């Protein structure tokens, strides 16, 4: 079931079009990563989804509520972590969460229970008597994540959650997001950190200059952009004469003295056949393995193509 649905979403600011005709869905319990360079329209998209901005054209529904018709309801159902979350520095964590819980209409007892549980869950309970202004960057980001969760939102929008953090802080926040994912939260993750997207997301949406340029799982994107997987065979003996034998099964992309590379859409059938041919010719095989295909390659390929 789609919890978030954007249909032909367009957002213009004066003469500038930030998002143009974007359509996608986020399903219950799914983590969708929105990838793209700075200024691609990710933050604007998230703001439209969180009913902070109104679409210029198209529409957005969250749990069935149209953001234009029922923005309050939408904002009650979503939790938003912004790219640079400022906290109220003179407040203490419990007080801060109590305020946002109250703004979301939670009663006092629920607010206290949830705040305590979340602070413990995110390892911030020990700092409950400190002012938020005294928190480290990582702690602040986690605190902002806790704030986004205080009203048990159905959907979480995380906008560049690790962008401003050092490696340790980023790791902590990534772990927290991974835990939320395991717990079955529906998450839309905006990032330009490709490793983060690859590790955390079920599906990816690549956006460039306000338009979606590619979508799918990591594997699907690799397939779409880089083609079928490439395998490399390394041989212990010289290649002389053996290439003709494997050509009956595959067409090598290139070769050298140590081996060759080929592409196949059916590795489960092709790879055993290649090995069998090589074995029949008496050539000893050191290894047959897929060439690593990074999401970064997909991304750079796409950005190069659209630019």
């Amino acid at each position: 079931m789609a919890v978030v649905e954007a249909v032909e979403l367009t957002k213009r600011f004066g003469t500038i079009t930030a998002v143009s005709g974007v359509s996608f869905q986020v399903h219950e319990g799914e983590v969708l990563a929105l990838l793209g360079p700075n200024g691609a329209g990710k933050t604007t998209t998230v703001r439209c989804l969180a009913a902070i901005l109104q679409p210029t054209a198209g529409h957005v529904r969250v749990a069935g509520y149209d953001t234009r018709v029922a923005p309050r309801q939408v904002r009650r159902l979503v939790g938003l972590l912004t790219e640079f979350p400022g906290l109220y520095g003179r407040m203490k964590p419990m007080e801060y969460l109590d305020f946002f819980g109250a703004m979301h209409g939670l009663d006092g007892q629920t607010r206290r229970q949830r705040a305590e549980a979340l602070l413990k869950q995110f390892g911030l309970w020990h700092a409950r008597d400190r002012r938020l202004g005294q928190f480290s960057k990582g702690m602040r980001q986690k605190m902002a994540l806790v704030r986004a969760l205080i009203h048990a939102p159905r959907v979480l929008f995380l906008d560049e959650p690790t962008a401003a953090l050092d490696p340790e802080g980023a790791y902590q926040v990534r772990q927290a997001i991974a835990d939320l994912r395991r717990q079955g939260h529906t998450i839309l993750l905006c990032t330009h950190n490709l490793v983060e997207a690859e590790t955390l997301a079920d599906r990816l949406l690549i956006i460039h200059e306000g338009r979606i340029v590619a979508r799918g799982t990591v594997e699907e994107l690799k397939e779409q952009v880089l083609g079928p997987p490439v395998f490399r065979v390394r041989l212990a003996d010289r290649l002389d004469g053996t290439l003709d034998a494997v050509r009956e099964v595959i067409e090598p992309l290139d070769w050298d003295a140590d081996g060759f590379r080929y592409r196949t859409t059916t590795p489960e059938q092709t790879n055993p056949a290649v090995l069998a041919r090589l074995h029949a010719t008496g050539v000893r095989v050191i290894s047959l393995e897929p060439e690593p295909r990074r999401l970064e390659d997909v991304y750079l390929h796409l950005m190069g193509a659209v630019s």
Partner: protein
Amino acid sequence: MSERTLELVAVPDIAPTHPRFDWALVWTLVRREIRDSLRDWRIVIPIGLLTLLFPFVMNFMADVVFDFLERYDATIIGERFVPFGLLAVGFFPMSFSLVIALESFVGERERNSLEALLATPAGDVELYLGKLLASLLLPLLASYIGIAIYTVSVVWERRWNLPASVFAQVVALTTAEGLVMVTAAVLVSSHTTSVRAANLLASFIIVPIAFLVQIESLIIFWGQEQALWWIVLGLLVLDVALVRAGIRTFNREAILAREIDFLNVERFARLFWHFFKAPPEEAAQVRQQYGGTPPSLQLGRIYRHDLPRLLAENRWGLAASLLTVVGGFLVGWALLTWWEIPPDFLDMRSFDPEAFRAALQRRGAAFALLPAFDFRAIFWHNLRVLLGGALLSLFSFGVVALLLLAAPMMIIGLLASGLAASSQNWLLFLAAFILPHGVIELPTVMLSTAFAVRIGAVMLNPPEGFSVGEAVVLALADYVKVLLFAVIPLLLVAALVEVYITPNVVVWLYS
């Protein structure tokens, strides 16, 4: 994180039954903001000092003034110093509301905490009112405490019987001034991109208010306290207008999207030119496509289509002008109760045509405020007043333009009333002195005023889809169109009639 703690945080699904407006959200926001202000020593210490110490300083000053004036039997001035002190002890802590209000939205934006607030279910009105009340309540409370301390100390020490009406006036004035400062400052805060920019604009609030406080002080020393109620009333009307403008123009989208403040003169100039040339009904379309070739300006179209359409669109402005003309005349008529006109000043029964013509010839020299009796001078004087009204309308939400229309009508009303009181025919006076050129001039001035009022009014209520700046440019373009193609030609005709026909009508009717 552990799976066990997750069960703890599971809450029932939230029922989306939020009311359209929720005071609970407003008060939640107010409580947080006030608590935050109370934790900021930069706010607490000055407010505390002004609230607790300044009344005693003022009381000491009152003692010194009383003692000094008693030596010269001028105790009446001393007694008027007390309400002035009351006004001052109330105003100083109140001025802090400006500091708090100015950074209400833009401060949060700078600290990156605004988006989280905008992501809560609170609507625009709740956010706006929450910020407004949070900025107002603490300084207002401090003002009331200051006023109370000063009152108690003055009454206690000097056994001075403070009239309840004066106390009520000062409390009302302090509250109304605080509201004006806060509503205006919150408005500024929600339309700027940095605290620095908001602070720079603060002078547009504090200077008029400081000027007003000086006027109030003068009124107190003059002993015309009743006039202070009119100021309270005016301030409350302004409060309502500002709150309405704040809510109407509050735009969470603009707050987040606006990255930098700069005066794009070229854009506004081009927009003005396009609005000026296009038919009125195409304004919204022009707003979006002003970058293209401007539509052609057709004189025939302007008279046949544009001006009638603009008049229909601005019927509320015309109604306000008409109301001001009638109201001004009636107020002027009633003013005779306070201002007595010398009997020989208005004795038309001994009208001397020669003396009348001679008086007209030396008018410009004898009365500096009136132009010489020459059609160029009259035309230029009228045009200058109308343009001044339009310009000042921008800074007064249209009020000054209406006041400039009301003033001559009050004078006419006063003169007519004076004639009626001395059993003279005031209708004959109007027919002779006003009607010949007034039949052209008065509708022309009303027309100009109606469009001048619109320049200020659109700041409170810009058309749908227009920013405040775009709305003002549109109103200016419409004003210039009306001015060039209707007001100026008619003013010229009216001035010619006033110089060459009206005096003859006066002589004919009164001889």
